[in-house]
């Protein structure tokens, strides 16, 4: 929990990337998520990943991002790379490291697994970069403003997102206090088998839910006291978000990544199958 909060805090840093409109970064992120859907060539995917790593330097988050990714890559990708070769269709023309009944592991299967892993790597890198360079409150506010003013959708929905982030530390604090109070009554939440531990979460969940409901009630009353009305369609926003040429340029880099992927498809170099 603390780690997630630290990651969210990074979104408030100051850098050329952080100063961009959060909506521009959202669009860029969407583009970078589309790329691994279109492309499976691991070298192209690796090139895009390296590009984001370099941008992390510009965003002054390189050390923290690399440290996070070095831990996360093996966890997220390791399972895919280790299991995929077993499910890769076995044909006679492959080079097998071993083949025993339905169990098999071939060079081709391994290459394919690595390509699938690279898709996850790129998506994960783009997500991490986006989270570490974007103030999610700012994003929710900017999206909320856009939804209200352009789409005439109530600000209540973005506010729900903002609130869920804003009260995450308090929820975390409540959880720690509640588990502490149970430990103090000789109930060690972390001890015992998985079943036992699951059973122990029930008494913890009740005061936690109670506390959340009470907090939600207090917040809703506080909002009403400050004249918040979910039906109002013309509320103003403290911070104005305007798309500048820098934002357009940044989004364009994402669009270019998609165009390059499409070009790779046209040239027949987008798929991993070319190496198999």
């Amino acid at each position: 929990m603390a780690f997630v909060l630290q990651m969210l805090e990074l979104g408030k840093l100051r850098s050329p990337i952080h100063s961009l409109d959060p909506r521009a970064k959202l669009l860029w992120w969407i583009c970078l998520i589309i790329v691994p859907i279109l492309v499976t060539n691991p070298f192209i995917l690796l090139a895009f990943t390296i590009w984001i790593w370099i941008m992390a330097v510009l965003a002054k988050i390189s050390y923290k991002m690399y440290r996070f990714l070095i831990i996360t890559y093996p966890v997220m990708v390791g399972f895919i790379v280790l299991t995929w070769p077993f499910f890769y269709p076995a044909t006679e023309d492959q080079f097998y490291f071993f083949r025993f009944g339905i169990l098999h592991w071939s060079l081709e299967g391994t290459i394919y697994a690595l390509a699938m892993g690279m898709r996850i790597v790129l998506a994960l890198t783009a997500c991490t970069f986006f989270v570490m360079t974007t103030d999610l409150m700012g994003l929710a506010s900017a999206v909320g403003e856009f939804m209200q003013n352009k789409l005439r959708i109530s600000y209540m929905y973005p506010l729900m997102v903002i609130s869920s982030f804003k009260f995450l530390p308090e929820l975390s604090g409540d959880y720690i206090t509640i588990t502490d109070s149970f430990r103090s009554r000789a109930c060690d939440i972390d001890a015992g088998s998985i079943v036992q531990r699951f059973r122990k979460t029930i008494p913890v969940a009740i005061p936690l839910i109670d506390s959340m409901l009470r907090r939600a009630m207090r917040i809703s009353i506080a909002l009403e006291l400050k004249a918040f009305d979910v039906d109002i369609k013309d509320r103003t926003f403290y911070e104005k978000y305007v798309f500048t040429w820098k934002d357009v340029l940044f989004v364009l880099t994402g669009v270019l990544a998609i165009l390059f992927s499409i070009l790779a498809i046209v040239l027949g170099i987008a798929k991993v199958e070319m190496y198999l």
Partner: protein
Amino acid sequence: MSVDDIVLKTEELYYRYPTRSDYALINVNLDIRKGEFVAIIGQNGSGKTTLIKHFNGLLKPTRGRVIVDGKDTRGLPTSELARSVGYVFQNPDHQIFAETVKDEIDFGPKNLGFPPERIEQARQRVLAEMGLQGLEEEMPFQLSRGQRQRLAVASVLAMEPVILIVDEPTTGQDWRESISLMELIYQLNKKGHTCVVTTHNMNLVSLFARRVIVMWRSEVYLDGTTQEVFAQVDQILRAGIKPPEVYELARRLLPDVRLDRPIIPEDLAELLVKEREKIHR
């Protein structure tokens, strides 16, 4: 009092939260003896709660050690230390979960493996002590705040701890409820429980505590009997605490009188009468 009477001891205790660079506790050395009623006071963020969380192992020292009932807390989980130390949290709603008052009280003793007869006896005893008789089958969330606070204390007392730690017991309660709860803790103290209470209510401290520990900037700033600590008005103000008015009045009206026990307004009036008689004589 002998060394054997010490039930809680901290030795060169330092603590730093993992996410912070500065120390939350600095070189805390305390001896708390059996049967003492200790109030730990201090500004918000002075280290009170951090200190008492060491007493039942919720926090483990970064440096130094804490000895509870002869056991070093570093090697024991909180669930084991709960046999010796009862810890009542500030907000009773953070620990209440059961459908009935009875189940809530029985939760701790069951975790400690008490036999059914002992659980029954403990429940009846704490219900009587906390004035909750007749509410055994009630739903805890439907009780008043004061009753829920007493239930929280009862559910901890049912585990028969040697030391009772109560964090901010009177927060959110009116004066009558606060006095009533502190009176209950005082009665427990008279029966032999060692009680450690943190609070911001100085009037309650002066009424009930016999020893006061003032925390300031992560250190023990003052430690002494209630009258000794509250008599040091300048120092205590420096620590961001306003002593009860009765002490300030006593200091100004009777600067030469040495207080030998905690005072309440009635005591001050009595002292003033005596002083007046002395002058007239």
